């Protein structure tokens, strides 16, 4: 016994090392199979707490790259989904390319909401295939229409303008009207042309009608905020909360309608025929 204690005293460093090393080896061997690693891993309470809180901060550093990656993915998904969603009639619409709309991505370089007619400048131009009268949306809803194109940039007439209006309709109905801006609040537009016998209430969704051949069908415009019946005619005047926050735009999609020209020419010809 005396000898044993002496031995332990003498070699305590080496013995402790061997003991701890054995514990560590046994942990390694027992947990080598990752499915059974229940104790020593980063999903336990303490380390996941640290990692989660750190990620809250560090996540901001690569938001930009992450955003761009998601946008690219979104574009390819949107382009591929169009092939399926319109499958009933897309062969009639465009037999050559197989699709009617093409989404492109752009970043906003200049923007305003304070004027009567507001323009947004984005960083895609002729060299990227942008042409006049393309639709501009972001992931929330409509933004505007391309009005002027240079080599590297294009100027978008924001939905916040008093010049022209966008064809709109009430979701799940065929009632349509036109959305324009009264230059009062950059978060709201006015929808006219919905007949006052329609069952419509606050919170209803307003979508694009797609009649003008600029915007695709069923793009989000906003939701009904307030509405009142007009005394002069039989239509509602409806204030619509814009889905897209025009004031804080950063990334937008430009949508090209390959059949726009064809539709407009046909409509023009028909008018001439009638005259």
């Amino acid at each position, binding site marked *: 016994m005396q000898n044993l204690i002496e031995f332990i005293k003498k070699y*305590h*460093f*080496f013995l*402790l*090392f061997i003991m*701890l*090393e054995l*514990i*560590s*080896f046994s*942990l*390694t061997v027992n*947990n*080598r199979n990752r499915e059974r*690693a229940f104790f*020593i*891993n*980063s999903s*336990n309470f*303490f*380390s996941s707490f*640290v*990692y989660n809180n*750190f990620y809250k901060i*560090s996540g901001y550093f690569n938001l930009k790259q992450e955003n761009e990656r998601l946008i690219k993915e979104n574009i390819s998904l949107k382009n591929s989904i169009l092939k399926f969603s319109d499958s009933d009639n897309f062969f009639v619409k465009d037999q050559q390319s197989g699709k009617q709309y093409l989404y492109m991505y752009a970043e906003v370089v200049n923007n305003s909401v304070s004027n009567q007619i507001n323009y947004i400048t984005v960083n895609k131009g002729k060299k990227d295939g942008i042409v006049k009268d393309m639709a501009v949306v972001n992931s929330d809803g409509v933004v505007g229409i391309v009005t002027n194109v240079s080599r590297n940039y294009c100027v978008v007439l924001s939905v916040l303008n008093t010049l022209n209006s966008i064809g709109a309709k009430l979701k799940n109905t065929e009632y349509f009207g036109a959305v324009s801006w009264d230059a009062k609040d950059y978060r709201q537009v006015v929808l006219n042309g919905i007949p006052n016998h329609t069952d419509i209430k606050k919170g209803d969704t307003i979508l694009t009608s797609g009649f003008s051949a600029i915007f695709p069908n069923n793009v989000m415009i906003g939701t009904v905020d307030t509405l009142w019946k007009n005394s002069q005619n039989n239509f509602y005047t409806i204030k619509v909360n814009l889905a897209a926050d025009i004031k804080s735009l950063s990334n937008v999609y430009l949508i090209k309608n390959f059949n726009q020209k064809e539709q407009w020419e046909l409509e023009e010809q028909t008018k001439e025929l009638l005259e």
Partner: protein
Amino acid sequence: MEVRLIIRYVIYFVSLVLLQVLLFNYVSLGTGLVPYIYVIAILLLPIDIQKWIVLILSFVIGLTVDIFNDTVALHTSATLVLAFMRPFVIRLLSPEDGYVIGTLPSNFTLKFWRFFAYITILLFFHQLVYFSLDIFLFPKIEVIILKTFVNTIFTSVFVVFLHLLFYKNK
């Protein structure tokens, strides 16, 4: 050991582990190498500290880093070996007139080459054990040796740099 010194070492300990898992784990420079700077906590303990305390501390810090890194006790084994080798390396590199009691093995108490040798030799064993156990199932001796050498130098540079940055001459 004084209470103040103990508190200081606890703060070192915690901040080194956090630095390791939150920052230096991602400083791979695209090479797959990682500077394991948390070993500073063991390397820069006072020279005459009880050897068994060093072992216990190595076990704790190794296990903590393992928990964060999902490396099943690899760091624990490696750091224990480092702690075990430490007294021998300290004796091997002792200056002609011996160490001053209570000093840290640092650039200020040793000549630079002694200090660098001290770090590199200990890190070599640390990395050797780590990579041997890590690649254990696929016995590729040349990969183990290569990784050990390269990562030893890589980590040493970081350790010296951090040491010069944060430890004052006393």
